[in-house]
């Protein structure tokens, strides 16, 4: 294991997942489109999309129903054909509220006219980027950053390496694993298309080595289709291997500067799901209307599903044979970084990599005093001292917390997982980050107001 490339810190949350819940073997099944889909206009980081349809409009599958609300934004497409019955505010994962288009499914699955790119190899980078943008593709690993923005290098930044995230380090989740296994060819094709869009010669796919079959499948395609410059790299099994900075470090040995982005060291990171969506958009002309979702945990038949965007979680649960007794929590995403769902009516979005039903083990146990054991320090992939940040935040000393680097926290949850005193370390850091950024905004507003006065 020491021979493999490692980032500092890390932990093994897999230890808490018993064999039954791991559904790495379940092939991706098409989930039938539900009677009605609820498509939020904000499924990404940045400005929400602007609705293009109103109540009563008939829409076709793949039709653009929301257009990008700014540069950092993404359009939204209808995932079924049918009739718009409402444009209303709904609650999404994490408790935020956003506008959403509700479409009554006519079960025709009538596509809009698709315009696949005939010869993408001859297209310019800008044209490819435009195609990706119009398809509404965002980072599908969970962050939801508009992919086209990521692929448009800003200023004088030079991109040398495309890093593909196939680590899938969160326990329970197997969506990316299955995708790599079943759509290896498309993924490699997608990577080549993105390499064209970025004009880079090198791509590295990082896969945790607990997925040897996926590594094998990808490697086979690399050589077969002529994937020059594409390497598949087996990475140690260590959470959070899929963290952007950790992955860049593990694959390229470059440290993304604190507060910086991978592009600062000449890298762009894309999730395998995103790559697949890009391939579909360019080769088939299909916008992003469905994605692979792992349904796991306390359901009777866990599995992986190709789900239409906007499908309520309840439909997914039903497809798995319902919840088992003792389900206390629904998580959208992985157990380490996912958001808990209040209701099972919340729709699947572009960033929903999984839905988990968890029991008592997910309920926060009682907190005990910190015993200074240093496990959080050892696990922190950002090399912070979470125990100290926790105390500082709880004592309201945000200035000191900022000095100690709380803003570097990526909220991966490794410290909270490792803490024997069951302290809510990640949660404290998150709170600290929020307060600090709020203060900064206030200060900036104040400064702006004063400037305006002068």
């Amino acid at each position, binding site marked *: 294991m020491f021979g493999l490339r490692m980032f500092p*810190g890390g*932990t093994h*949350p897999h*230890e*808490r*997942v018993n064999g039954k819940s791991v559904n790495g073997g379940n092939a991706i099944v098409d989930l039938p489109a539900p009677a009605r889909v609820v498509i939020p206009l904000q499924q990404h980081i940045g400005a929400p999309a602007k609705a293009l349809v109103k109540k009563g409009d008939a829409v076709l599958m793949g039709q653009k129903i929301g257009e990008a609300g700014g540069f950092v934004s993404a359009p939204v497409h209808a995932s079924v054909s049918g009739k718009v019955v409402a444009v209303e505010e709904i609650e999404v994962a994490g*408790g935020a509220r956003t506008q959403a288009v509700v479409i009554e499914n006519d079960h025709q699955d009538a596509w809009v006219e698709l315009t696949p790119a005939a010869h993408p190899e001859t297209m310019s980078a800008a044209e490819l980027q435009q195609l990706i943008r119009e398809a509404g593709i965002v980072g599908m690993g969970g962050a939801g950053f508009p992919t086209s923005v990521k692929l448009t290098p800003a200023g004088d930044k030079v991109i040398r390496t495309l890093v593909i995230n196939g680590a899938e380090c969160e326990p329970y989740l197997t969506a990316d694993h299955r995708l790599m296994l079943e759509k290896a060819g498309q993924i490699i094709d997608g990577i080549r298309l993105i390499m064209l869009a970025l004009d880079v010669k090198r791509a590295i796919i990082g896969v945790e080595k607990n997925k040897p079959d996926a590594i094998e499948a990808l490697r086979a395609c690399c050589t077969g289709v002529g994937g020059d410059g594409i390497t598949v790299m087996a990475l140690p099994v260590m959470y959070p291997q899929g963290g952007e*900075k950790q992955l860049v470090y593990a694959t390229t040995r470059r*440290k993304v*500067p*604190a507060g*910086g982005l991978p592009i600062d060291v000449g890298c762009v990171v894309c999730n395998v799901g995103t790559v697949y969506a890009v391939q579909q958009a360019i080769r088939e002309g299909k916008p992003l209307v469905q994605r692979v979702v792992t349904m796991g945990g306390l359901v009777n038949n866990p599995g992986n599903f190709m789900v239409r965007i906007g499908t309520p979680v309840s439909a997914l649960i039903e497809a798995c044979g319902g*919840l088992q007794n003792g*389900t206390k*929590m629904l998580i959208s995403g992985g*157990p*380490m*970084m*996912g*958001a*808990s769902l*209040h*209701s*099972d*009516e919340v729709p699947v979005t572009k960033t929903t990599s999984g839905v988990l039903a*968890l029991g008592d*083990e*997910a*309920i926060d146990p009682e907190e005990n*005093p*910190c*015993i*200074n*054991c*240093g*496990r959080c*320090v*050892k696990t922190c*992939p*950002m*090399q*912070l*001292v979470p*125990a*100290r940040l926790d105390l500082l935040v709880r004592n309201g000393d945000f200035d000191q917390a900022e000095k*100690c*680097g709380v803003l*570097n926290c990526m*909220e*991966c*949850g490794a410290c*909270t*997982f*490792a*803490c*024997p*005193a*069951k302290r*809510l370390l*990640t949660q404290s850091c998150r709170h600290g980050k929020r307060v600090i950024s709020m203060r900064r905004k206030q200060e900036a507003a104040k400064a702006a107001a004063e400037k305006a006065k002068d």
Partner: protein
Amino acid sequence: MRNNFAVASSPHLRSKATTQRIMLEVCLALAPAGIAGVILFGWRAALLIAVCVTTCIVSELLWQLVTRQKVTVNDFSAVVTGLLLAYNLPASAPVWMAVIGSVLAIILVKQLFGGIGSNFMNPALTARAVLFISWSALMSAADPAPISAIYDPIANFVGKLGAGGIDVLSGATPLNALNAGSTEGLSLMSLLMGTHGGMLGETCAIALIIGGVYLCIRGIADWRIPAAFIGTVFVCYFFMGGAEMALYQLLSGGLLLGAFFMATDYATSPITGLGRVIFGVGCGLLLFVIRAFANYPEGCSFAILFMNVATPMIDRFTMPRPFGEVKKHG
């Protein structure tokens, strides 16, 4: 439709490690040394261990009840403190001393500062130091307890494995002779088996090593501290009196007990790896200086206590730089 799912901030998964489990494993690791102590020193050793542990638990319980705090005796940290304190007493120590020491350790050193994790000095060691300063005659191991008839056969057996048999037990800690520069009357075997004078839990080196290595392997104690501590002492004595002298020094007195079980106390040692190395080296150097040059033949407890005091400062200066942060100067 179901609307009543619990909502919480991520992460939603927790490791199996708990404070209670950790403390229990420490107790487990301490067990061999305690058993050895009882075999070597007889029923008085068992009595002192029982008294210390009970008093620690009771004083923590009473304190938390009186001050209306959450009762946390079930985390077993008071048991660890009691065991460590008992191991640091000579088998001849009077019971009232064990009681006073336990109360001081729990109330004065631990609870007054906010309980588990908040104390800045090791409770057991501080209590031992207080007893040592106050009643140095009673705390010296020169006068071991009579070995009761029940344990005689076993003690005899263990004693015969060592060099001088049971008589050695009536001698003072081997450090007195060692510090005077002689290894006469000592054998490595007797040091390993613990058939010599000393505090009741510190003499049997084998038992301590077994427990200590267990803790390090289980990741409960950070191996850096004992490694740096013992390594530093070895190097110092190696240059002073050669390898044999160094080995004798390592196996005598409270070094092993201190290095494995007390220097690795979480609350009173640095939180970062680098800090822990510095801490261990500091302990080793101080132990060497105190053993070699100061009044007390046994420097282990004071060396660790002083480094306890220095721990917040070490922590302050060994804060790791966040991943990717560039050095600002140079």
